[in-house]
């Protein structure tokens, strides 16, 4: 190998190291951002707990409390999707692109099912956003979380699309990993939310 070639391969190696560094930075920054965002949810949770503990009338007049059956199914689907997305990522690491796409698409389907279920629940509830503190906090919390699920599903769609660009999946890994972490985050938030709103009577 001539000197030039050695130099070139060194250069390539440096560039790659730089790219990895940059991806690590992006992942670090993304996790910092999620930690920050979790404080918004935490603030809403605090609001919910304070209102529930202190307000004279919690549920709107004539309303007994929320049904738990459908939301429970929804919860199971959303929590399971966290495992599905994990397997999708595993397939990508093993460079099994079709395995990745199938499991990734399944995650998207499960996320969409959750959104659909929530929309159906919202349509059948007898109270609105303006109906007292319960109505306000209920729609605020589930709506803000739903917005995150929607964002997650859209991000997943982008990543799925990118997997069809030839030779792109390696470069798309940061996006896939970040989307997956975001999805786990959305899941954990939902578990807390579910316990607060549906289980805690």
């Amino acid at each position, binding site marked *: 190998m001539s000197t030039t070639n050695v130099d070139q391969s060194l250069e390539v190696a440096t560039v790659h190291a730089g790219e990895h*560094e940059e991806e690590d930075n992006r992942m670090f920054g993304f996790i910092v951002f999620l930690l920050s965002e979790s404080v918004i949810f935490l603030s809403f949770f605090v609001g919910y707990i304070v*209102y529930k503990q202190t307000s004279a009338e919690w549920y709107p007049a004539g309303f007994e409390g929320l049904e738990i059956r459908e939301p429970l199914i929804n919860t199971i689907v959303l929590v399971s999707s966290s495992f599905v997305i994990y397997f999708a990522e595993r397939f990508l690491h093993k460079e099994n692109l079709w395995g990745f796409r199938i499991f990734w698409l399944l995650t998207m389907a499960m996320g969409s099912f959750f959104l659909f279920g929530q929309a159906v629940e919202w349509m059948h509830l007898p109270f609105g*956003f303006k109906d007292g503190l319960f109505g306000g906090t209920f729609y605020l919390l589930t709506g803000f979380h739903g917005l995150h699920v929607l964002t997650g599903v859209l991000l997943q769609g982008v990543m799925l699309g990118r997997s069809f660009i030839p030779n792109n999946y390696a470069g798309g890994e940061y996006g896939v990993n970040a989307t997956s972490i975001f999805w786990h985050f959305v899941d954990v938030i939902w578990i807390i939310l579910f316990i607060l709103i549906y289980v805690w009577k």
Partner: protein
Amino acid sequence: MSNASMEALQPSLQPQPGAPDNWKRFFTFSTDHKVIGIQYIVTAFVFFLFAGLLAMVMRGELLTPEADLVDRTVYNGLFTMHGTLMLFMWTFPMLNGLANYLVPLMIGARDMAFPRLNAAAFWLVPVFGVILTASFFVPGGPSQSGWWAYPPVSLQNPTGNLINGQSLWILAVALSGISSIMGAVNIVTTIFRMRAPGMGWFKMPVFCWTVLAAQLIQLFGLPALTAGAVMLLFDLTVGTSFFNPELGGDPVLYQHFFWFYSHPAVYVIILPIFGVFSEIFPVYARKPLFGYPVVAVSSLVITGLSGIVWVHHMFASGTPGWMRMLFMFTTMTISIPTGIKVFAWVATVWGGKIRLNTPMLFALGGLIMWVFAGITGIMLASAPFDIHVNNTYFVVGHFHYVIYGAVVMGFYAAIYHWFPKMTGRMYYEGLGKLHFVLTFIGANLNFFPMHPAGLMGMPRRVASYDPEFAFWNVLASLGGFLLGVSTIPFLLNMLSSWARGPEAGDNPWRAIGLEWLVSSPPPHENFDEIPVVVSRPYGYGSDEPLIANASEKE
């Protein structure tokens, strides 16, 4: 810097393709942290002047006991906008500007971790600035509920329009929050992951420590304010009942959300000023920073404690006794890490070969005013005293000593100190000293009389007052006008020096720090070769070089 290393840097001194190399680059969507830093600083200063003008109208009103210059409604809008602009359009952008310009240079990085995010965060600043100032032109005028925007006052909407001063206020504050979070993610990632080889945590300059501590508050405090603002906006526009007591809501919960962030926010702006002091005192006293590791870590201690003091703003909000006791205690504990810093600065300056250049004068003046603010701060931390002077001018005087006395003086110190680095030119020392004298006298004349007036019982946020307070108010107003005048020599100095000041050289202060090893102004991407750090900062009087193979050490 030696000629040899100057030559090594020459190629990168060439303008980057496509980027203008003159003043026009400050009006482009640049991703260079240095350009963005100066964009932040200049934008912030424009709003500082505007918010200062609003303050002078208020001081003009307060020259006489009657409300004769502006009516009470206008006055409410004036103090609300003055406070909001000063905090969200001046101190935060100014801090981001300094951090943007200095942090990558100080830690030996070529740029911030996310240059494009950085530019996007900056360009939100003029947007929310315009939204805030636009509220002067909507029916009903700007928000009149004070910069706290406490409900139920902030929920009143007499015009009935969806777009009113208050909703614009909330929108601007929310945008400011988004910009700050973007900035914080960037700065924290940069400091954690992009330090030069060899720069362990305890070889990092204190300014970077303080910026890190401040940005952690932004990350974990600001979302609480955002949550509160979102709920307030729904109450105001949709008619929900979160904070509306008439519909069963809880206005005090808003106060908790607000102060959980807005008290720590004062540390967001004061901590980097502590960093500036820690950078400046060693240089102009020619001595190492006394107790460097303790000073560095105390910033994080302040960050930690800042999260558990917010209720001291609510001693008079029907807060139960046990809570008052608890938060009185935690608030007073903050004085320990803060006191450590003050003692370290005094010990640094003590017995040093002091050069009284303008940056040092501003730093010393800022330190004096900060100590005074600290003393009145401890007085206010004591619940019985706080309840006595609650909503009087004593409180106004206290926080103006913090924010003008320490923060603005600290910003001036920083601008003079790093001006030669940013522009490659030296400012005129005589004008700088004149600026300092006018500012120091003006600030004390303006803000000291507020304390006796407050102790006598003069309430804040009033356009007219009892004639017994007239003497102190005339003094304060004269001080306020003097402060306005003091910006003239500053602006003259900066503009003329930037255009045709004498060449400053790379290291006019003979300071030790990575930012002084590069040319002035620093080249694109800062370092031709990333330096390897081998010793602690502030090695004045020590023979140990700062970086490996440094061809020349100051």
